[in-house]
């Protein structure tokens, strides 16, 4: 039950993009088409799930016993960078078109602060291995939900001509993102 709450909490209540405001770069960069947004969401989900587990292990089995906790940032980045490389290889092999569509944002998952964020939150909240995994997957699915919803709205905005000239493109997208964040505030009372 606790795990389910943690999962929903990470996905909706503390949504990485819309509540914690982490991972805004791909949220704005890869949200022009629902298709690529889904691809990005999958890639981030994979990286975040694995990153939560591996960073947890690295922290518990290496950094804490060696009293090197202060090295967590560099160690976590190392884990994430390697994982992103792996994901890049897998996607290039399995889906060249998705690989082309994601373009530079694929290697940029490395610097997606949602991924580092999940690892650091796992450490600070002292989650167990299972909790870390659930938190990572939940958070990543939250990211996917946010980016796919946002991409759907942006696709519609693209064909709407009633938008004032000054707001076309990114400005209206940012305003939309703000409204979405406000809407996600509604989940605050979900888990008391």
């Amino acid at each position, binding site marked *: 039950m606790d795990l389910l709450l943690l999962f929903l909490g990470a996905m909706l209540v503390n949504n990485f993009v819309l509540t914690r405001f982490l991972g805004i770069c791909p949220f704005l960069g890869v949200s022009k088409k629902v298709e690529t947004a889904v691809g990005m969401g999958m890639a981030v989900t994979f990286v975040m799930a694995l990153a939560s587990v591996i960073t947890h292990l690295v922290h518990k089995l290496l950094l804490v016993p*060696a009293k*090197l906790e202060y*090295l967590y940032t560099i160690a976590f980045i*190392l*884990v994430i960078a*390697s994982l992103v490389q792996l994901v890049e*290889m897998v996607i290039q092999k399995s889906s060249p*078109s998705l690989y082309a569509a994601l373009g530079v944002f694929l290697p940029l998952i490395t610097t997606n602060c949602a991924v580092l964020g999940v690892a650091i939150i796992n450490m600070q909240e002292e989650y167990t291995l299972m909790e870390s995994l659930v938190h990572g997957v939940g958070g990543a699915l939250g990211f996917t939900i946010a980016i796919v919803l946002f991409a759907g709205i942006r696709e519609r905005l693209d*064909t709407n*001509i009633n938008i004032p000239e000054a707001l076309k493109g990114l400005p209206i997208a940012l305003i939309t993102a703000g409204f979405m964040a406000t809407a996600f505030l509604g989940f605050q009372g979900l888990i008391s």
Partner: protein
Amino acid sequence: MDITSILYPAAAISGLGLVFGAGLGFAAQKFAVEVDEKVEMILEKLPGANCGGCGYAGCEAFANAVAEGQIEPSCCFVNDAESTKAIGSILGKEVKVLERQRAMVACRGTDENAKEKNLYYGITDCRDAALIPGGGSKSCSYGCLGLGSCVEVCVFGAMSIKDGVAVVDPEKCTACGTCVRTCPKHIIHLIPAKSTYHVNCMSEDKGKDAKSNCKVACIGCGICVRNCEAKAITMKNKVACIDNNICVDCGVCEEKCPTKAITQIKSVG
């Protein structure tokens, strides 16, 4: 200061790096994308615009298909003759080089020439606008909508909208055919780049209606057909059509056309 306080962290991080590096190296072998040497060489000789004119997802996909012999190198219309021959030599076979083509918009219904039937405040994409009732602002239902979907899709920047009608810059046009496929009105054609005369209308309306909709419409009178000495002009669906392979560039059609629907165009190549 104790030297070990530096050594331990350094060893730990390098150890981690080594483990992940080894893991990645293993993965790289497992997930290696086999790249044919020929493919890379062919790819170098392609324009790299990824226009999709060949029907493949991009230049890389086309290079793959060429290397496997599924398609002729000359099917990349964008490439110049020299590069196409170079690809032939990579493959070790003779390739024919096709004649250079260019896109041409068969409509000159500019704001000045064509009558507007309404003020248009709708979708700003031809492909969608053509589907909704009314379909754009011009009275002529065959003409260019002027909303610029072709401009948007042209990766070579050869299309532009001038006075409400799309025009092609023949110097930049590579005949990739993306605009031809995009245009919902099907008024963009590929013609030999060296052609000089072109009928700038696709209206199948009756002469009177066509003329009242647009000053420069082809009214299907057939004067050009009768006057063409080379017999290069035929009537197709009430519209004159010049066969640029037969045309001798005499210019009689332009001279005789009562609505000036036939004009001389800039030839290239």
